[in-house]
């Protein structure tokens, strides 16, 4: 079976609730069959609206959504055959776990034996065998969450949508659930569209991530590329930590550009700047700047330590560097640790390839 690269297709989709503001603008997004795609973005960026349009609870104002080549904009939700895990699980509180899972099968008029089998299989998938007769209120948050996942998968939907399903769980449980959902996805190969505002969740779980802002997809790529090579300053800012310098391009060639800051100059990698004189924001990951670098680096400066925060596995150092007192360094907690003291001067260096000159903020 060849995987369809356009299994779910948003084709020039616009959405407005009030006729004045576009919540989703000209969305063009293809989701491949069997893919785990995450819509990531701050609240109000339109990601949940996209999910609701796909589920059928909202209709696009303009454009079409295609599922496996068929336009589904006019198909009501119950005929789309899309599984959904809701933010607050939306388990039916008056039904047992078994009845919750059997609901989608019963409405499809599947025979009792078959239902039993499928429910059993789905429950074992989330390792909740033996919980059939419990009521949702008798389960812990994590267990409810798993029931919700099992319920969304039990009727073998082609696509499963998940709307911030882990938002209500505590940190440890959230992490273990992330792996669990990822493993379920890998073992059954269902297409998953996942919505979250938690970037680490997105990076951990997804094949591809679509970063939403202001109703638009800012960048669609796999997690590594998203983190390493953000295409604009919003993505750079939103994913992971980031040191930024605002300046003006004064010299540019193919791989390097010279950026003039308030009272110094740095070398950077031109991503979205083309010409001299353009304003730019240079983005640099904290872990890419090294203290007292042994290798030769094309950006070398001296800064003054403003603050040292111990984080266990690493230490965060805030520096006053190049006129900004918000420069963050991440120093891994290794045995060769330096003595870092406030108001000490240290040498910092980074490669211009890691400093990405993006669009100005």
């Amino acid at each position: 079976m060849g995987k369809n690269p356009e299994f779910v297709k948003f084709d020039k989709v616009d959405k407005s609730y009030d006729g004045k503001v576009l919540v989703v603008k000209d969305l063009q997004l293809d989701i491949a069959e069997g893919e785990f795609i995450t819509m990531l973005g701050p609240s109000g960026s339109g990601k949940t609206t996209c999910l609701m349009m796909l589920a059928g609870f909202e209709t696009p104002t303009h454009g079409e959504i295609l599922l496996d080549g068929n336009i589904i904009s006019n198909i009501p939700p119950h005929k789309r055959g899309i599984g959904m895990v809701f933010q607050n699980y939306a388990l039916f509180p008056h039904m047992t776990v078994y009845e919750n899972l059997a609901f989608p099968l019963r409405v499809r008029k599947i025979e009792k034996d078959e239902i039993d089998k499928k429910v059993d299989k789905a429950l074992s998938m989330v390792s909740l065998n033996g919980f059939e007769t419990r009521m949702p209120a008798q389960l812990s948050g994590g267990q409810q969450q798993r029931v919700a996942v099992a319920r969304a998968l039990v009727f073998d939907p082609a696509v499963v949508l998940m709307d911030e399903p882990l938002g209500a769980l505590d940190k440890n449980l959230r992490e273990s659930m992330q792996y669990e959902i990822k493993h379920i996805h890998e073992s059954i190969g269902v297409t998953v569209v996942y919505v979250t505002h938690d970037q680490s969740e997105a990076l951990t779980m997804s094949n591809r991530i679509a970063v939403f802002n202001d109703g638009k997809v800012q960048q669609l790529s796999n997690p590594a590329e998203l983190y390493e090579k953000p295409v604009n300053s919003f993505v750079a800012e939103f994913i992971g930590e980031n040191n930024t310098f605002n300046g003006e391009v004064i010299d540019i060639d193919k791989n390097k550009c010279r950026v003039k800051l308030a009272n110094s100059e740095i070398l950077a990698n031109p991503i979205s700047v083309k010409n001299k004189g353009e304003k730019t924001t240079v983005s640099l990951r904290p872990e890419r700047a090294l203290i007292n670098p042994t290798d030769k680096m094309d950006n070398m400066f001296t800064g003054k330590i403003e603050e040292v925060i111990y984080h266990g596995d690493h230490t965060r150092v805030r520096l006053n560097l190049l006129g900004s007192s918000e420069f963050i360094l991440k120093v891994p907690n290794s045995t060769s640790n330096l003595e870092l003291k406030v108001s000490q001067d240290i040498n910092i260096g980074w490669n211009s390839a890691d400093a990405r000159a993006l669009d100005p903020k």
Partner: protein
Amino acid sequence: MSSETKQILTTDGIPLEVSLKKAEKKNKIKAFLLVAPLLLFLVITYIFPIGDMFMRSVDDRMVTNMLPKTFKAMENWENLDELPPEEVYRGFYEDYKLLAENQQHGKLGQRLNKEKNGFNTITKKLFRQIKRNKIDESVSIKEQINKIHKRWRNVEYWQAIKRTAPPYTAAKYLKGMDMYFAADGSIAQVNEDRRIHRILWLRTLEIAFFVTLFCFIMGYPIAHLLATLPMKYSNLLMICVLLPFWTSLLVRTASWMILLQQQGIVNDFFVMIGLVTDDNRPEMMYNKVGTYVAMTQILLPFMVLPLYSVMKTISPSLMRAGKSLGGTPFVAFLKVYFPLTIPGIGAGCLLVFILAIGYYITPALVGGASGTLISNQIAFHMKTTLDWSFASAMGLMLLSGVLIIYWIYNKLVGVDNIKLG
């Protein structure tokens, strides 16, 4: 094993339980003092009146206290089918004489007349004889009294006196169910043409039931709208629902009278659209229709509010989940939404039914003859016949009826499942 666990002591050596009780005691007293005024209020305004009502409804001590000697003598009256012996007559004469001296004899006559028609006449005759000192106490009183009126020679009248002997009686309750104690003490039905109360009870139940049903049918969609509409519309709708609450009951009933009368707006409208002819306007008031319409409207908020408060707590994502899992909107409603609203339905129906069953002012105004309820009958006896003990008895029957319904409801639905908000 576990029963051998050592008693846990606090650091001071006092057993933990004792220490806990001591600590809690203050809180308990505080809590009690907080509710004490309300408790007192409830006792004074609720428990006492109901107790008093009960006493009134069964109290029949008046005759017992008026005729002590008669009833004492009647203990020896063996053959009840024959006139009582001389000592009963003498006892009755002595009791009656005492009453006559205290000007109490009229009350006795009235009371006995209720027990058996014709007593008033013959007690008055006896009174006149006594007043004129015509009765010679040295000879047989029985013969002298029997001579006063032929009814004194009728054993049924003496049996009637004997029936009033017990200080407490359930006669009023029987009367409320169109029954009475027959001469021989057995329970009998009143003549068929005089059985009015049973019809009223059934009609009260019927009207309460249908009003509840109509309120449910109309209130459910309204409550659903209220719970799901955006805030600015639902607030407006809420005001529409509550507006009747803020309007006087009389005003609302009166406006229904204006609407429903034969020359009223509704009839005018029917004529205008050609539904009925002008000379054949239907009567919609002073019958059951009027009672149904007005009571449904008045009691509707009591259905809408509990339903609304329950529906408000149902997350809209549940319906969405139902649909996304493949249920048609109808199936999702029936299997997911509706079961979750049952606590609200229970609360609303119970509230409306209990209010409807004791409703008074609306049926009195728009009910006419065929639309009045048992409460109107109670009011009639309170105000017109002044038979308070009968009114009390019917009031208590109504109360116990409500309690029985509550009990059945608890068995069927469970009171824990009620949610008022």
